């Protein structure tokens, strides 16, 4: 389906509203329940869902090691900043260097894992990806890379590079805008994919890979493309997020919680749909935020049963269900 202009415009408007609110809150302070933290969470989860959707949603392969990309992004950015500080270079060198490291590391990981693991189907692929994630984590600890289990301290170098004023901006609004840019980039890439041959190839792969190949789809190429794109976006998200943490420890960076959240976001909104991650990111982010006050850390207890229910009852997710049960929406919602 070629996506309707209205649909794309509507999504972009939603993005603009959230970003606008974030900036507004920064200037005038919280608007009732809408605080900077809430909007940060929304941006993060929308970005996470939108980025992971490109792989899980569009191909139907479950990457249980997705957090490895975010971890490499966090480490890539943080170690870039630390290196710039140690070399006595100005701060923005560190950020540029960090971005280059993030993209290099995540594409390398994606190409290596994609080249190997994407030859495996379903269960075997899932097992391989979990192993890659844990393997990487223990490699970082075992060989003492990036300070290993002692943790890579970022806040110190950041404060010295940018001053405490600059650091606090970087840790809040600037990193939020970066997170936002990742979400937007992921949205734009999704639109491009869905509107071109790539999207059709990925849909065919998701529905029936063998049939897709017979119909002329170079399945390996498109799977690796989706995996790498989604992986680099995950890395960029990790890089943007790294400004918010004081130090990075392997168990936190490679925490499977992020993978769980990413899966929930994609499946709840509707795998492979364009609007799904916005819907589920908003739901999940707000619930996590509002629960944090009353029952901190309870969001998974709420969402894990919802995830199981969605898979069993409505595997097409919220947006997918709209498309399935209200035929008129199929023409314009993707």
């Amino acid at each position, binding site marked *: *389906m*070629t996506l309707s202009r209205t649909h794309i415009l509507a999504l972009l408007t939603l993005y603009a509203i959230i970003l606008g609110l974030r900036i507004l809150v920064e200037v005038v302070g919280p608007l009732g329940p809408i605080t900077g933290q809430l909007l940060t969470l929304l941006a993060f989860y929308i970005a996470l869902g939108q980025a992971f959707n490109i792989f899980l949603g569009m191909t139907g392969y479950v990457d249980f090691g997705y957090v490895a990309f975010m971890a490499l992004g966090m480490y890539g950015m943080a170690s870039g900043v630390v290196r710039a500080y140690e070399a006595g270079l100005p701060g923005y060198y560190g950020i540029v260097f960090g971005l280059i490291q993030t993209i290099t590391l995540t594409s390398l990981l994606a190409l290596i894992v994609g080249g190997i693991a994407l030859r495996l189907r379903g269960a075997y692929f899932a097992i391989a990806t979990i192993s890659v994630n844990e393997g990487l984590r223990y490699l970082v600890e075992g060989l003492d890379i990036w300070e290993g289990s002692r943790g890579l301290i970022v806040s110190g170098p950041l404060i010295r590079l940018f001053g405490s004023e600059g650091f606090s901006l970087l840790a809040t609004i600037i990193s939020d805008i970066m997170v936002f840019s990742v979400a937007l980039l992921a949205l734009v890439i999704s639109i491009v994919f869905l*509107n*071109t*041959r790539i999207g*059709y*190839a990925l*849909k*065919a792969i*998701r*529905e*029936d890979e*063998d*049939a*897709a*190949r*017979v*119909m*002329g*789809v*170079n*399945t390996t190429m498109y799977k690796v493309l989706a995996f790498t794109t989604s992986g680099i976006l995950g890395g960029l998200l990790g890089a943007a997020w790294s400004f918010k943490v004081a130090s990075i420890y392997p168990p936190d960076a490679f925490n499977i919680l992020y993978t769980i959240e990413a899966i929930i976001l994609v499946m709840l909104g509707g795998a492979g749909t364009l609007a799904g991650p916005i819907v589920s990111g908003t739901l999940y982010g707000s619930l996590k935020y509002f629960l944090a006050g009353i029952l901190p850390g309870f969001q998974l207890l709420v969402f894990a049963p919802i995830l199981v229910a969605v898979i069993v009852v409505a595997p*097409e997710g919220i947006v*997918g269900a709209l*498309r*399935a049960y209200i*035929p008129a929406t*199929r*023409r314009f919602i993707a």
Partner: protein
Amino acid sequence: MLEVLNVTKRFGGLVALKNVSLKIERGERVAIVGPNGSGKTTLFNVINGVYKPDEGRVLFEGVDITDLPAYRRAHLGIARAFQIPRPFPNITVRESAAIGALFGSYYGRIGVREALEIADEKLKLVNLYDKRFELTGRLTVPELKLLELARALASKPKLLLLDEIVAGMPPAMVDHLMLLVRRVADEEGIAIATLVEHVMRAVVRFADRVIVLHLGSKILEGGPEEVLRNPLMEEIYLGRRWSP
């Protein structure tokens, strides 16, 4: 146009195809006949690249395609319509058909918009145009077979491999479908190879030439009437009467 040269395919100890050779010319309609287990489906899988033969070569338009992966063969213009339709249940009928167009012999030359136009055109042809926004998973089995055909045709094939597409369809629809395929194939010069388990009159009328496979070997080849009259046929089917 298609040449299969001395192809042998084994699965473990089982020989599924034994030294099979055949030719299909441009625009020709060939029925490949044989009982269950005769190697028909394996032959199709060798032609469109799902299996690589252990021995022998496959040539398409004079080019050796034996080592080409399945998807590259689709780009060259070999299309397949599966016996058991392989629907893409969660996408619309229109998108399903468009996938055929995007990755068939138009590959790399058309965009999504043109593919959707081609899809619409072929869906009109098989009478599914009204259901083009329906999810594929909701079609009935005969409708799925029509979609399978539309998708294959949308790829603008030079050679169309029809798995037993008529199996399990009501007789009236079989006639209609065969006429339709024949008309389109004539208009566009598509060669057709169709698999047939039981020799039916509709198929006999449809095919220019019949090839009979038995236990992996080609045992008969010729015009339909001639093949049907051959006493070997009765032996193969163990006295089973083909439908009138």
